[in-house]
């Protein structure tokens, strides 16, 4: 039985990763899961310099989901390389995807250039879809021309393969997927969070200091499956699927819809061992269904 998947020439021991921003760089959840069992660790967004993020409250619960407005707090690429990448040296079986964020094209490029010679970085995930920062972030992800341009620019600088992370906050996500492909993306990942809002009826005010936040968790899963399916049928580059994946069934569903790999995000918050539990469930499914290669199920539901 073979759980290996390959994306842009990078081989992953299995298709299960965690989703950027929900897992740090693995240090904290490393207490609960063996990071060496994951297909990949996908880091929190990294910028050129430290970002303080948004004021609090940054978190709100909604039915079967949550809103976050962290605002990409991160220590900047220098600290990240010296601390987080060094930590990840201890987990050689897992691949490392570094999620990159910026306010401008120049800021993305600065991070991409700094990471170019870091051997621990297997791939870059370019976040052009964060709904929680005013400039950059999602602004790049909602206009196909901007998606294509930033993809082309990043591709020119990057030494590692690039995954463009798409926003679901668009009319037609296929258009963005095609734009990323046209710009030279090696893969796409989706979905980032859906912009939402929660109002406290007693205080008659917003729950989040940022007013809006990105929705994630089990409630968004059907939307994510639909979008992965649409993109899989629109582009020829591999897809990393995410959005509400909480059980092995959810992960298998993503792959049947067309994802080559699957990220687990919010589920870590209610089940710290969600990633490896999902992997174990998927392996049992392969045994039961006599699936030799996990890649055999990618996109077979047409």
């Amino acid at each position: 039985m073979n759980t290996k998947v390959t994306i842009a020439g990078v081989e992953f021991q299995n298709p299960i990763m965690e989703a950027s921003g929900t897992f740090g760089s693995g240090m904290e959840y490393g207490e609960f899961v063996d990071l060496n069992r994951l297909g990949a660790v996908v880091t929190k967004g990294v910028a050129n310099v430290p970002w303080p993020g948004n004021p609090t409250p940054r978190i709100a619960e909604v039915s079967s989901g949550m809103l976050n407005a962290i605002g990409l707090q991160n220590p900047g690429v220098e600290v990240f390389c010296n601390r987080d990448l060094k930590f990840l040296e201890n987990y050689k079986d897992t691949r490392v995807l570094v999620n990159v964020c910026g306010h401008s094209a120049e800021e993305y490029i600065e991070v991409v250039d700094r990471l170019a010679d870091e051997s621990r970085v297997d791939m870059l995930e370019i976040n052009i879809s964060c709904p929680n920062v005013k400039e950059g972030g999602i602004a790049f992800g909602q206009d196909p021309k901007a998606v294509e341009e930033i993809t082309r620019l990043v591709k020119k600088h990057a030494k590692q393969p690039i995954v463009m992370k798409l926003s679901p906050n668009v009319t037609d996500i296929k258009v963005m997927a095609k734009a990323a492909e046209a710009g030279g993306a090696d893969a796409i990942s989706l979905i980032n969070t859906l912009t939402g809002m929660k109002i406290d009826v007693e205080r008659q005010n917003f729950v989040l200091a940022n007013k809006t936040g990105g929705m994630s968790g089990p409630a968004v899963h059907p939307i994510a499956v639909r979008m992965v399916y649409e993109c899989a049928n629109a582009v020829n580059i591999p897809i990393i699927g995410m959005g509400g994946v909480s059980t092995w069934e959810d992960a298998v569903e993503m792959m049947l819809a067309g994802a080559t790999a699957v990220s687990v995000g919010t589920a870590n918050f209610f089940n710290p061992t969600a990633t490896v539990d999902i992997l174990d469930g998927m392996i049992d499914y392969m045994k039961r269904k006599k699936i030799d290669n996990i890649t055999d199920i990618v996109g077979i539901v047409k």
Partner: protein
Amino acid sequence: MKVKETAQIVASDKLAENIYSMLLATTASQYAVPGQFINIYCNDGSKILPRPISICEIDKELGTLRVVYRVVGKGTAEFSNLKPGDTVEILGPLGNGFPLEEGKAIVVGGGIGVPPMLELAKELTGDVTAVLGYRTDDLFLADNFIDAAAEVVFATDDGSVGVHGTVVDAMKENDLRADVIYACGPKPMLKGVAEYADSIGAKCYVSMEERMACGVGACLGCVCQSKEVDNHSHVNNKRVCKDGPVFLSTEVVL
């Protein structure tokens, strides 16, 4: 060490209007120290985020943790309906806890900030005065503090028991002195306690609260403003769940 496990409820009692106590059998008790908290997960899966609740008492021999909480929403309402023998998923112990310092100590709790001070009062080896603030004469846990502390001072919002006013008013009125003050309660109270501590030259530890998602330091949801750069993101944001919930009052912006 942190454990994620199914804990069995040993006892569940109502202490006062909307205030409940729950005794949980869990191996987390073996690693817990006063001032830490546990994440309690709802059995109703539509409520996906854990509820952070402070540890009120630790019994390592019996292997139990006690939590005391106020029903404020759907999650805590669900917990209040649990019966002995029922189970809940928990993660913990989380956070840093109160450092046990030598010398004369004052432990200050306001409202639902009272419970976490109990285990601390029991474990401190020096002379302990407890200053407890309540809304009314519904003095939950007061008897436990009378057993645990050398002296107990009350403040109530309605003046029915002790000093009519805040815990800070009560400290001033009794001219309390100490080497160290520990406090848990609403932010304005923490600020007042920190100022009082400063005025008497005492060190002051405060336990902070913020909305959380992961509870383990990964998501950066629960930060509070710190005076110096934090060692995670190198900005001025410390994580309440991991770097706290207990901070020196001089470390954070109150």
